[in-house]
């Protein structure tokens, strides 16, 4: 069960993530951001509900649509936005933009610009945790598209054979870029594929914080007991296109509006908190206002940050010790 403290933490993170994504959208349309920017708006429940159950000792590997996971895992909005703007103060010193935010000190092994690229890396993180006898887990976040990559099969099989404390969280947002899941994927539920590895697989409503939270809690308990990995499929929907310039010819405006109006994960979870008397409307409004203010400060920080010095472009190709 979600207690008050956890509930408010999740609610706050969801707001921070949405504010970050919608701010990135605005900055992109104002030509203050460039490059490949994939927004997570509408999928916030997954990252927030999972990361609420992780400490800095737990590991994640994320995706090209990774801002939500990184913020959930402790990335600061200001340094993250600075990276999206290619500034020297960004997480990657302006070298990487949107798709490579990482912070090993927080257990974030990195967003990953290759579809399916992070799945074996999370698996290796779980291998390290097991070899170090740590009571922690690694989480591989990825989308429905990545579940058709070879790394999905190779990694989950390996983790199942070795009983690694790795949890595979599939964010099925209905589209691999523009291709709908029914056209690319042979099963009704991606979690059905768990049977191929002899491990549990569950499908939950990815816009329902409580459902994601409880599924992850069960998978985490199993992983820490040494019983191995679980696949959790979270069915969700991205409100924005695949990327910021997506003409969205593959879906209708009505479909998007329906998800926004009727299945907004933040609105739903806010109502749940009030109904369960875990929060008052006033508390929720205060959280939303604080997140918005933090985002404004992040924009100021990023806009006023210096450009990276080309003098240092060759730094860090190798660790020089």
């Amino acid at each position, binding site marked *: 069960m979600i207690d008050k403290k956890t509930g408010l933490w999740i609610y706050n993170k969801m707001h921070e993530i949405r504010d970050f994504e919608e701010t990135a959208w605005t900055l992109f349309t104002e030509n203050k951001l460039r490059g490949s920017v994939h927004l997570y708006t509408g999928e916030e429940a997954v990252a927030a509900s999972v990361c609420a159950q992780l400490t800095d000792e737990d590991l994640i590997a994320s995706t090209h649509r990774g801002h939500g996971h990184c913020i959930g895992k402790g990335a600061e909005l200001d340094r993250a936005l600075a990276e999206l703007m290619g500034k020297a103060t960004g997480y990657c010193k302006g070298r990487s933009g949107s798709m490579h935010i990482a912070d090993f000190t927080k257990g974030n092994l990195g967003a990953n610009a290759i579809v399916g690229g992070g799945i*074996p890396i999370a698996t290796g993180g779980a291998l390290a945790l097991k070899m170090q006898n740590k009571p922690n887990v690694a989480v591989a976040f990825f989308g429905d598209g990545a579940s058709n990559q070879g790394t999905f099969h190779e990694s989950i099989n390996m983790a199942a054979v070795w009983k690694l404390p790795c949890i595979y969280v599939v964010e099925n947002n209905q589209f691999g870029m523009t291709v709908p899941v029914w056209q690319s994927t042979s099963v009704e539920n991606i979690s059905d594929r768990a049977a191929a590895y002899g491990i549990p697989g569950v499908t939950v409503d990815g816009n329902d914080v409580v459902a994601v939270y409880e599924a992850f809690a069960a998978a985490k308990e199993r992983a820490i007991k040494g019983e191995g990995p679980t696949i959790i499929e979270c069915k969700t929907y991205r409100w924005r296109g695949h990327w910021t310039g997506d003409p969205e010819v593959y879906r209708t405006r009505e479909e998007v509006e329906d998800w926004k109006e009727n299945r907004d994960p933040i609105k739903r979870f806010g109502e749940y908190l009030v109904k369960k008397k875990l929060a008052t409307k006033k508390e929720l409004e205060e959280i939303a206002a604080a997140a918005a203010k933090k985002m404004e400060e992040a924009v100021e920080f990023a806009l006023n940050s210096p450009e990276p010095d080309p003098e240092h472009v060759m730094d860090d190709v190798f660790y020089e010790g």
Partner: protein
Amino acid sequence: MAKLTYAQAIRKVIQEEMQRDDKVFCMGEDCEKLGGVFGTTRDLYKEFGTDRIRNTPISESAIVGAAVGAASAGMRPIAELMYWDFAFVAADQIFNQMAKTRYVFGGNAKIPMVLRSQQGTGRGNAATHSQSLETIFMHIPGVKVACPSTPAEAAGLLRTAIRDDNPVCFFEHKALYITKGEVPDDPDFCIPFGKADIKREGTDVTIVTNLLYVSRALEAAEELAKEGISAEVIDPRTLVPFDYDTVEASVKKTGRLVVVHEAHKNCGWGAQVITEISNRAFRYLDAAPIHLGAKACPLPFNPGLEAAVIPSVKEIVDACKATLYR
């Protein structure tokens, strides 16, 4: 000093480094009971257990990716692919992940891992199990590339690789495993990266080569000596970093350069060496440098056909003589 084979030297270093540091472990196909196809981890599972000498599924992307993840999380994996040819199966994890992680994360990551495998001709393994691929790993920034040609170098370079905090691709040659040589007993014996070794001193022509072709170049040098030509043979030992200084100094002495490798000639690493040395020592060159490498043809199975694709000792001799206009 002990006389060991190249394979035994590698095994000795893996064993000593695993004794020294419990973060070091091996993962690869058949590394446990078989000890790898060439015995480089033979019986080590008895000492270290099957957690640290870890058999993997035949899943090259997951082997490399899991090593990157484990290295990110504080371990020091030695991941083994059975043949370097199989690196193509894991190409994303090698070139987009392993090689770039530190840089793209703004220098906030260390990936201390070794990716080992063997390559080359000589055992009739045909087109997809006989290639020499080290050039490709030199082309993509972010990995160090080591290519030992003797048992002592296999030991000294591998220990340096394991202790390095960067990803190192370690290129062994399948025909070298049974070769024997003296290996220092010192459990801290390391050979620094970026330091070429002059295998034979000479004054008339400089031959730069690596791996199996070191012995072939030395054979060629013997032949040349009979004709009164003194060849200097240099093994760079690591391609990344590359010791151009030693080659430059040699060419300034001899005025002639031949680079030969088993890797394909087209865009092979020898072309890079010739470019760099031509820029550094153009005025010292008395003849155009010559580049020898495998023909632009997949490696065939039949021994006669295979030999026809890769440079022969005679071709090395002839190339050296050509630089002397003889």
